[in-house]
């Protein structure tokens, strides 16, 4: 009896810890948001008639057009290619599985600079046409510095979010249903429309909302390409209209848009009513394509890879090649800073994100769900606003530390947190914990609730249950999240720029300095390093989800769980 009670207490302790961590995360994310809202509470009334009359209409129009356009581009490319590589066999298919996620490694604004460099008049494309005597064709080259150009470039860089999330479901979850439909005589596109697509909807919702949030947050590419989004307006309001309060108020509007996006995402997830089956996930049988269909599929996958990765990287490599390497030592130092900050941010987000998902699962009360929604908003704050909002709470903590130190006769500590790399890591966690919790929630959604029960029945401790049941099942989702967050941290610019300590440069800030001087090609080598470092985890992810799916195919997951409960029961009794 006493043993049982002891176990119970331990289990609820585990749940309490998880819920407490989840709430702490929400509080952490809320801190800068509250600071921004506090700023917004200051009156800027004389500004608003002006904003409403001249700024907001354009800002909202451009923002919505950009979001919509990028969404469509990313959906077509991301879901389309994911469907192709998981339903069909065609030449180079296994290569594309690796290549298609790669554009993720490129910072959007670098891609924007490269596209202008290549496609604008006097650029590589025009020169090549002129040299081959096809000057007339130059008129058909796209005008990159435009809304349409921004939509294409941002869409081409960000579609991998959708490719990754859609492919994961296409190749495991919906495979059996797709097969059943096929056996009943459905055509491939009918299978896509009636089976694969509806089943993949939650995953697609996650991927799409990530893309929307990234797009909302972008400032470098859109400003350069002449698109006046809300984010750009926030900056001009703050810097030129001299109103931080007004900027904060605009930021609040953006937060509202984000809240809507997050709710759409949640709704998308809820709409899925095919409960996760306890059946083992199986790899899809792929149909072999022949002739023109095979050529078409190969080409369809080649285009986004060429446009989003091969061409920009070749351009960077070319630029790096005919330039001096410069200071190799500082390049190494910058890389080390980037990697350390990104790894730290990823690790912490990787612990806190799943806690939020677990809290949702184990304590499905509405008030908690509402509180935890806050944790998703950090992704939406423009990096600079986040950094500004974060500074004051951090400085407050530092001042408290200094006061304590002085009270005990210690030295003045200075800005221990706000003035060190910790500030950057905290900013990364705030921005990207939404990614890890999103992936973890999508992962949990695939774990049937019976598993919770079987863990509970055996009296397993929460921690053991976590480690031995949930984690193995969550592994692909968690790795996916880790990779997305790591690459995002590497690329993150505005918060890093504003929060970094003295004498610290990262790869992103170093590239930015060249770019802001108008000679981004001088940073080509640093950009290549970001891409190279980013490639490793992206390729790892592609490989991992493959091997995982294959393993799951061989070993029946539910049986493993049963095996686990029985062996665990016998071990603990």
């Amino acid at each position, binding site marked *: 009896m006493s043993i049982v009670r002891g176990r119970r207490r331990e289990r609820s302790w585990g749940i309490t810890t998880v819920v407490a961590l989840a709430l702490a995360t929400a509080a952490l994310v809320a801190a800068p948001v509250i600071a921004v809202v506090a700023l917004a509470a200051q009156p800027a009334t004389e500004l608003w008639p002006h904003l409403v009359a001249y700024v907001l209409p354009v800002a909202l129009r451009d923002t919505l057009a950009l979001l919509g356009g990028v969404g469509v581009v990313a959906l077509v490319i991301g879901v389309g290619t994911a469907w192709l590589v998981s339903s069909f066999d065609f030449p180079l298919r296994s290569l594309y599985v690796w290549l298609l996620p790669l554009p993720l490694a490129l910072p959007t604004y670098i891609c924007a600079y490269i596209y202008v460099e290549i496609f604008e008049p006097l650029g590589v494309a025009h020169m090549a046409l002129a040299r081959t005597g096809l000057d007339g064709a130059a008129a058909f080259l796209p005008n990159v510095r*435009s809304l349409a150009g921004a939509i294409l470039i941002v869409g081409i860089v960000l579609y991998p979010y959708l490719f990754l999330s859609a492919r994961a479901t296409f190749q495991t979850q919906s495979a059996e249903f797709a097969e059943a439909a096929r056996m009943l005589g459905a055509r491939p596109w009918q299978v896509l429309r009636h089976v694969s697509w509806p089943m993949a909807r939650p995953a697609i919702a996650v991927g799409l909302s990530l893309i929307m949030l990234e797009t909302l947050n972008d400032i470098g590419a859109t400003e350069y390409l002449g698109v006046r989004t809300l984010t750009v307006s926030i900056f001009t309001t703050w810097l030129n209209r001299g109103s931080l309060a007004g900027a904060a108020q605009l930021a609040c509007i953006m937060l509202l848009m984000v809240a809507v996006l997050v709710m759409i995402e949640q709704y998308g997830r809820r709409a899925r009513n095919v409960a996760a089956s306890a059946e083992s996930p199986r790899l899809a049988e792929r149909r072999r394509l022949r002739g023109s269909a095979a050529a078409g599929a190969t080409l369809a996958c080649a285009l986004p890879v060429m446009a989003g990765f091969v061409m920009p990287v070749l351009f960077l490599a070319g630029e790096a090649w005919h330039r001096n390497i410069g200071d190799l030592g500082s390049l190494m130092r910058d890389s080390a800073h980037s990697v350390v900050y990104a790894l730290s941010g990823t690790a912490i987000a990787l612990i806190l994100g799943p806690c939020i998902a677990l809290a949702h699962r184990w304590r499905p009360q509405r008030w908690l769900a509402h509180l935890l929604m806050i944790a998703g908003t950090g992704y939406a704050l423009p990096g600079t606003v986040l950094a500004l909002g974060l500074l004051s709470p951090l400085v407050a903590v530092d001042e408290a530390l200094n006061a304590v130190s002085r009270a005990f006769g210690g030295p003045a500590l200075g800005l221990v947190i706000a003035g060190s790399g910790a500030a950057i890591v905290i900013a990364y966690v705030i921005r990207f914990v939404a990614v890890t919790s999103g992936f973890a929630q999508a992962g949990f959604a695939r774990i049937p609730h019976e598993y919770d029960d079987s863990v509970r029945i055996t009296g397993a401790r929460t921690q053991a249950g976590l480690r031995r049941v949930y984690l193995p099942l969550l592994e692909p989702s968690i790795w996916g999240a880790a990779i997305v967050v790591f690459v995002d941290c590497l690329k993150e610019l505005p918060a890093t720029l504003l929060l970094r300590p003295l004498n610290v440069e990262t790869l992103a800030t170093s590239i930015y300095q060249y770019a802001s001087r108008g000679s981004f090609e001088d940073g080509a080598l640093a950009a290549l390093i970001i891409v190279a470092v980013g490639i490793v985890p992206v390729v790892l992810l592609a490989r991992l989800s493959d091997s995982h799916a294959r393993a799951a195919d061989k070993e029946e997951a539910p049986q493993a769980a049963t095996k686990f409960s029985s062996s665990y029961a016998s071990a603990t009794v």
Partner: protein
Amino acid sequence: MMVRPLSSFRPLTLARMLATTGALALVSTLPAAAQSGEVNVYTYREAKLIQPLFDAFAKDTGIKVNVVSASSGLEQRIKTEGENSPADVLLTVDIGHIDEAVQAGISQPIQSETLDKTVPAGLRDPAGHWYGISMRARVIYASKERVKDSAITYEELADPKWKGRICIRSGQHIYNNALFAAMVAKHGEAKAEAWLKGLRANLAQKPSGGDRETARDVAAGKCDIGVGNTYYWALMNDNEPDRKPWADATRVILPTFAGGGTHVNLSGVLIARHAPHKANALKLVEWLVSPAAQQMYADMNYEYPVRAGVAVNPTVASYGALKPDTMPVSAIAASRKAAANLVDKVGFDN
């Protein structure tokens, strides 16, 4: 039991490992305790580009310069950091940020005979809160082929004869903001608005890109004249072989206000209110206007030195003699908001 690949990577263990590494790494980047031989600079000029100057200062004085650079928000950072802020010196590349900083109350007055003697009165704050250390002018990049004019006023940019022939970056960019603010300060809001409308009507395309893209657009024939800063053209001409053709196809005209001079913007410097190394900060600021530093500035950055007797870089000198407009910087700064609002109002960037 079947061996599952990668099951040995327990994410939680890995995460713990990473967190430990991260924590260790963070401790190593903690701010070094305040030392006497240091000065901390927050700068809007890119850290890497200004490093040679700071290296020279360290060699001259033995004082180490710690740098952090950003493109926006440094005033706000210093203000929020409060009395524990490590910032000693703030370096800007335009008058807007200087103005913001002084308004935010993060500066302190400097008393220095050296500075007052060296920096002309129009290029510093009468109360000593900030000093200009170099100038750049906002000028015209004109097509060699299609433009024969040798002189032009800013006011003429709104003349219908330039319809569809002008390229310029965003009207909200700090450089254009300062130019438009000068126009407001000179002619008042109503006239400035009419001028801005006229300029907008003359644009060949929606404002975007930077000053280099403007030169490129002129070279490519998208437009006949563009508005840009003096140093970009010099950099393209002297240092950037890829862009040499853009410089070759264009020439620089120093425009003036009708009855006035050329619009210049300042790189400015101020000492932070809670500067922990105030004495070193003053040494740095005074050193920045020394003949050697001014010469480095002129040659490295292609800017106009503020110190009399320091030679302008030959490429910059080839534009002709600069006659800066005499409108006080404080008056321009006071019109910045009005200029930004006019840009919205006439839909300059839309």
